[in-house]
C-alpha cells in the first residue's frame, strides 16, 4: 500500500505496483472468478492489533514455555526421547517406544488427537505441537496416558 495526499492535503491510501487486470483495466478483465483473501487479511490485522506488540510476544512465550514443559515431561518417560537437541519453538519430534499409529489409536480413544506420525522419516517418530491454547492440565493428561502405554 502506498500513502499519498489528495488536493486538499488529506491522507489517502492507494495500491501501488498492482498490475492485475482487475485493478488497472477492469473493463477488459476476463478472469473474474477466484477467491477473496481480503477477509482473512482483515481478520489477521484485527488479531495482530488486538494482541499488539507485547501480546504477540507473550503468546509466543506461552507457546514456548508450554511446549518445553511438555517436551521435558515426555522425554522423562521410559521409552520416549526427544529426537533433536537444537532450540525449538512450539513443535518437537519425539521417539516413541511403540508405533505412533498405535499410540494415536489409544489417544483417540481418550479423546485426544495425537501427534503427527513421522515414522516414515524417523523410527517411531511423532511430531507434537503445543501452543498457548493448551493448558497444563491437558499436557499432564497427555503425559499420563503416554506413560501408561
Amino acid at each position, binding site marked *: 500500500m502506498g500513502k499519498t495526499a489528495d488536493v486538499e492535503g*488529506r*491522507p489517502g491510501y492507494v495500491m501501488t505496483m498492482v498490475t*492485475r487486470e*482487475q485493478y488497472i483495466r*477492469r473493463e477488459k*478483465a476476463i*478472469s*473474474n*472468478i*477466484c*477467491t*477473496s*483473501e*481480503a*477477509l482473512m487479511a482483515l481478520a489477521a490485522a*484485527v488479531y*495482530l*492489533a*488486538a*494482541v*499488539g*506488540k*507485547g*501480546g*504477540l*510476544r*507473550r*503468546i509466543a*512465550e*506461552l507457546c*514456548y*514455555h*508450554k511446549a*518445553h*514443559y511438555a517436551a*521435558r515431561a515426555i522425554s522423562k518417560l521410559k521409552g520416549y526421547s526427544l529426537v533433536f537437541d537444537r*532450540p525449538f519453538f512450539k513443535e518437537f519430534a519425539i521417539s516413541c517406544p511403540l508405533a505412533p499409529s498405535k499410540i*494415536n489409536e489409544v489417544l*483417540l480413544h481418550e479423546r485426544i*488427537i*495425537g501427534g*503427527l506420525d513421522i515414522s516414515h522419516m524417523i523410527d517411531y517418530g511423532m511430531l507434537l505441537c503445543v501452543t*498457548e*491454547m493448551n*493448558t*497444563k*492440565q491437558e*499436557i499432564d493428561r497427555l503425559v499420563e496416558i503416554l506413560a501408561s502405554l
Partner: protein
Amino acid sequence: MRKHDLLPDISKPGKIGCTLPELDVPLAELPPEELLRKELELPEVSEGELVRYFTALSKMNYGVDTGFYPLGSCTMKYNPKWHEDIPRLPGFGSTHPLQAQETSIWLRSPAWMLSLSFPWPEHTVSLPAS
C-alpha cells in the same frame, strides 16, 4: 481519535486489546538472544479503541450491506455470508488438515452436510439421529 488516525497514531505503550491465557507451567530457558526478534512493529490499543477503529472503517466502506452492489471482479466481492458461518462451526474451524482421517471423516458425510441449517427456511434440512 481524529478521522484519519491510524492504529499506530493512537497506540500507547502497554495497552492491549484482549485477555491472554495464563502461564500455568514453569518457565523454560529461552533460546540464545540472536535467535530472538527484539521488537515487533505492532500497535498497542485497548479493545474499545480497536472496535471503534474498525467499526469506523466499516462505515467508510461501500458494500452489499449499504447499497446496490453489482458484479465485481475477484477481490471486489465476497462469498455468501453463510459461507463464513460454516468454517466457524464448533469442531470444524479447529480441524487440522493433517489430523487422522478417522477423526475428520464426518466432515464429508452427507448426513452432516444436510444437518447444517441454511438461512433460508425452505432449505433447512435435517436427518434424524441414527
